């Protein structure tokens, strides 16, 4: 049994079979050979080694030609590793004696070496593990050829264990069979986290390196509440988790009874409780739990899931489907919020500081054709329901005005072409940059609604990259400065009675519900899975009770005190602490 601690990013517990992705994101099949296939498979291995060696020689010669002999020599050691007679003998032995398929034999043998190198704490030796993974990758590419299996082609329920998942990998995975995620890299708010949440499956990220030790097929428990991953659990642990899974099923059934009941406090104040979605199919998750609307429809995965940029029609279909399914209830569509963590690695790498870089509305305003296409699609869908447009990451008044101008321009365009749309479509913006909170009195004059995005607001207020494992501990919604920013935003919004929503992970945690209501929020937008639980808290409190909690919390000076105070108060109204 092996226990790993990572960052819990999507709640729930699941027990299942490990599906390990190789360094390039492909599955290594754990396959055994028939006795009479051994010779043939050894030949296949021989060819793979030869092809891989040829590749490296090619690189070496090309580099030597361009940069000089001494640079080409860098590849010599790499080549030497590939040609290591002992390595080859070990791989061949496990094929001959244990009847492992060559892919599996290569993977096991090389990972054993990688593990040794990784254990050599410091210096250039530890980096040799990278060389080993590179050799593994090359050999597997030749061995598997076209037979590589991606997670888009799962055939049975699996827990995905990977070093890291690219946005397109997560977006294209086969939803029918993925039951949980573990990634060595990443932090809260990474795209893996968002997708896992959207799929309502448990996920743990940022566990650190461990994949070199497992090969797939092992029994694994993912505890998405505690951020724990348990590989090959012992009987006691397994039984414990089996019982937990059972209890949760019962609890989920209990919560279903809240579905038809309004999100109303005991003193009769109706709270608008909306769902956050990423994929159109999640509308059903929201409807099943009685959501009052879609408070945040993220549109990024339309772009990331596709090979090419989605055209207007594809976008229109997605937006129209959601608008129709919600039959008149509000649907807030956020324009493209791509950038930083969600971009492909190569693009993100070119920015030294992607979270402060060209992302989101900034990216849209620089790529007007893409932006206009999206706005056209949203506007066309607006006649099908209460569709609203929201701009993300606005940081200055000028940006907001520019975005609104593009919108007005697109409206004119649609009018000229005689295409129907709602001219009175509501236009709002996200509040996620502290500058906006400070200048809020100006912003409220120009928008129909605001939505506080706590994930980014926290990261910008505290200067913490939530995906950086070394500092993610500083990232917390309980920080007093975050509370004050929300309070300031609420105060300014009263000037014109601008409706304020709060999305972001903070709104989906029962710990903060009383605080948020006490600060004046009357609309929350949460991940669909959290709808019943948050509704249960709302239905157990009075506004004056919440206001008392908020004013007390605002006097506290550090995140730890605030969090434990809020948890205590929640326990007073719900003895199980909101589960």
């Amino acid at each position, binding site marked *: 049994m092996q226990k790993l601690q990572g960052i819990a990013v999507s709640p729930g517990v699941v027990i299942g079979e490990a599906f390990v992705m190789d360094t390039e994101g492909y599955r290594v099949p754990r396959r055994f050979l028939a006795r009479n296939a051994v010779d043939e498979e050894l030949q296949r291995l021989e060819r793979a080694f030869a092809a891989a060696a040829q590749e490296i020689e090619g690189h070496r010669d090309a580099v030597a030609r361009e940069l000089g002999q001494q640079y080409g020599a*860098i590849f010599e050691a790499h080549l030497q*590793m590939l040609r*290591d007679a*002992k390595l080859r003998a070990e791989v061949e032995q496990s094929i001959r004696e244990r009847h492992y398929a060559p892919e599996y034999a290569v993977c096991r043998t090389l990972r054993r070496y990688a593990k040794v190198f990784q254990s050599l704490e410091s210096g250039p*030796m530890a980096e040799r593990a990278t060389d080993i993974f590179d050799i593994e990758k090359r050999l597997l590419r030749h061995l598997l050829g076209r037979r590589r299996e991606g997670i888009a082609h799962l055939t049975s329920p699996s827990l995905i264990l990977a070093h890291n998942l690219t946005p397109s990998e997560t977006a294209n995975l086969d939803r029918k069979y993925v039951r949980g995620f573990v990634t060595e890299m990443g932090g809260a708010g990474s795209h893996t986290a968002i997708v896992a949440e959207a799929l309502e499956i448990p996920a743990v990220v940022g566990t650190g390196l461990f994949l070199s030790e497992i090969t797939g097929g092992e029994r694994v428990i993912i505890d998405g509440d505690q951020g724990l991953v348990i590989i090959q659990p012992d009987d006691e642990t397994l039984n414990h988790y089996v019982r937990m899974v059972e209890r949760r099923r019962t609890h989920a059934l209990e919560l279903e009874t809240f579905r038809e009941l309004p999100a109303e406090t005991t003193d009769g104040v109706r709270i608008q409780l909306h769902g956050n979605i990423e994929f159109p199919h999640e509308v059903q998750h929201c409807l099943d739990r009685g959501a009052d609307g879609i408070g945040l429809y993220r549109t990024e995965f339309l772009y990331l899931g596709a090979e090419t940029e989605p055209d207007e029609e594809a976008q229109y279909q997605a937006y129209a489907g959601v608008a129709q399914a919600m039959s008149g209830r509000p649907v807030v569509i956020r324009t493209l919020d791509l950038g930083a963590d969600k971009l492909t690695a190569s693009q993100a790498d070119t920015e030294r500081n992607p979270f402060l870089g060209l992302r989101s509305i900034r990216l849209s305003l620089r790529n007007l054709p893409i932006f206009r296409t999206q706005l056209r699609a949203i506007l066309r869908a607006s006649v099908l329901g209460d569709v609203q447009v929201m701009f993300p990451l606005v940081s200055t008044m000028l940006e907001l005005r520019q975005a609104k101008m593009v919108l007005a321009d697109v409206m004119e365009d649609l009018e000229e072409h005689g295409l129907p749309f709602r001219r009175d479509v509501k236009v709002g913006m996200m509040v996620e940059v502290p500058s906006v909170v400070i200048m809020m009195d100006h912003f409220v004059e120009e928008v129909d609604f605001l939505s506080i995005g706590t994930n980014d607001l926290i990261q910008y207020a505290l200067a913490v990259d939530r995906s950086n494992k070394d500092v993610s501990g500083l990232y917390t919604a309980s920080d007093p400065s975050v509370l004050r920013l929300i309070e300031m935003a609420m105060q300014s919004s009263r000037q014109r009675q601008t409706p304020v929503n709060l999305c972001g992970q903070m709104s989906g945690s029962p710990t903060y519900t009383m605080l948020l209501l006490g600060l004046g929020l009357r609309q929350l937008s949460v991940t669909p899975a959290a709808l019943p639980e948050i509704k249960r808290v709302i239905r157990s409190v009075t506004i004056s009770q919440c206001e008392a909690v908020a004013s007390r919390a605002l006097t506290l000076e550090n995140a730890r005190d605030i969090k434990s105070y809020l948890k205590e108060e929640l326990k007073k109204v719900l003895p199980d602490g909101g589960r």
Partner: protein
Amino acid sequence: MSEPRVVKTVVVTNPQGLHARPADMFVKLATRFESKVEIVKGHERVDGKSILGILTLAAAEGTTLSIEAAGPDAQAALDALVALVEHDFAENENIH
């Protein structure tokens, strides 16, 4: 048949230790000889013709190693390999 078997102790003196390129050079030289070559560091013993084996020793600057050679050309192999280590793998010439 008893083959000649020779041993000599050396200290790794190049600043980066026995990293990838020195290890590569060591293996390249060792494989020119017919004799079996082994490197011993403390309780660990690895094949001197296996770069992966050598790298797992993680022999940093200042590490004492025994080089053992056994076979028909054992003495020649040992002399050549000891010289390579003692001359810091002549790395400086390679780089500049």
